[in-house]
């Protein structure tokens, strides 16, 4: 069971502001989905190794060779807001 309070807590972790009616609907949706997902509980996986990746790749790395960076102009072109060569954001209160 997932409560609306849980949903608001998770939304906090995910940094999404939820209006009450949205939280209410999500609670119902998630409850249904989690209930479905709980069918995995019928499986015993105690001795099973997890698979986070399907390929048996190893030792993949690159040489320590410098490649051209973007120019300041190129990197800031994507920015929502900029100031004196930097990305500008609302003031971070320490």
């Amino acid at each position, binding site marked *: 069971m997932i409560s609306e309070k849980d949903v608001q807590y998770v939304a906090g972790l995910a940094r999404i502001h939820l209006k009450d009616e949205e939280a209410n609907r999500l609670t119902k949706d998630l409850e249904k989905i989690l209930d479905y997902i709980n069918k995995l509980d019928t499986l015993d996986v105690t001795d099973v190794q997890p698979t986070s990746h399907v390929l048996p790749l190893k030792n993949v790395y690159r040489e320590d060779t410098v490649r051209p960076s973007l120019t300041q102009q190129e990197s800031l072109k994507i*920015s929502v807001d900029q100031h004196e060569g930097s990305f500008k954001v609302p003031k971070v209160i320490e």
Partner: protein
Amino acid sequence: MELNKLTAHELLDLIKNKKATPQEILGSVHEQIEKSEKDVKAYVRINENTVVATASDERSVPIPIGIKDNMCILDQETTCSSKILKGFKAPYNATVIDKLKKSGALLIGNTNMDEFAMGSSTENSCYGTTHNPWKLDCVPGGSSGGSAAAVAANEAIWAIGSDTGGSIRQPASFCGVVGMKPTYGRVSRYGLIAFASSLDQIGPITKDVADSALLLNIIAGYDERDSTSVDMPVPDYTQALENNVKGLKIGIPKEYFVEGLDPEVKDAVMTAIEVLKKQGATFEEVSLPHTDYGIATYYITATSEASSNLARYDGVQYGIRELAKKTRKSPLLDMYDETRAVGFGAEVKRRIMLGTYSLSSGYYDAYYLKGLKVRTLIKNDFDKLFADFDAIIGPTSPTTAFKIGDRVNDPLSMYLSDIYTVSANLSGIPAISLPCGFSKEKLPIGLHIMTKPFAEEMLFRIAYTYEQNTQWHKQRVEL
């Protein structure tokens, strides 16, 4: 002759024999777009001035192509059909885009998709829904619905899609075209905007199997910028197009033919099996015992990865930024909360929430870790079968295309339409969907074939043989 209704390999022959020019082909595609795009809405952006390079290179493939809106194109807007990325113009090309451009491909536009590739109907797009060219009040499938619809509507000769749980194959099935998901690691993901990194793979959507092989030739290969791309030679896949399945052993999983499978789909698939049987393949009923856990495993894995992959869309650097009207926590925190509240659609929020929940402390073992373990069981099922079988066959989707709006309010029923496709992503194997008939309502049905990792040639061989002995791939929509 309507050039836009031909396949790429047919068009390349015409170009070679000086019976058509790339400009004429591009013109016929644009004419079709002019005519039917208002009804289909396959594209989110159309390039008005696609440049046709005067290509002297024999290998050049100057064929108009649609690109799913989740691959970065230098200085062009790429949004994943999400409001949160509105205005984002990548300062780089995805590797697939580089490869296409090098091949002379004519990028005609970006195709619509479910936001961040999350969905099975292309209804979750900030640009609105794409319509199925075969029946405009039906969905085209998803998430690469725009790509599949563009090809089916002859608004592109072929297209590129991405497949995380069936997002190439299911829309291909719904739109009566060929959709192929290569082995994980076969095509570079560099520049593909991630949904679930361990499952995502780029692949071709085409009118027939020969085109699928041809397009995979162009996009496949090792890329030093993607550590998960595999450093293995790429065969010429068109060499695998052999009309011969004699002696091949193909498995039919009994778990795929159960409740929920539309009888019309079942009949079409069984008939397709008969066609291949006649050509000399042998079939045997097999078991994939963990099939029933596929969707649950997929949704845990994919949403967990997504919740982390999509955390970067927070208004700090690019895309949109929303500020709170009234300070709740702090200007910065409010910006995060508000940007993500406004920028993401309902389904994306649902999945970020599910993923965040299953990764959160206290639930990690019960959900995320458990999902990874069941993923092992699912993968083992396939490994075991491929020791004895050349391929596995079944339906791509339990039903034909459903009506627009039918499932939007029932996420779980939408998820269940991926039941046959997700296991190929969970186990990393290649798979293809190709047309194998129509329902009474004249909606296409897809045949799904899977092989072991890096056995794309086997996949193409079986699919090509089927095609050579049927006519479904020659059906075109009149729009």
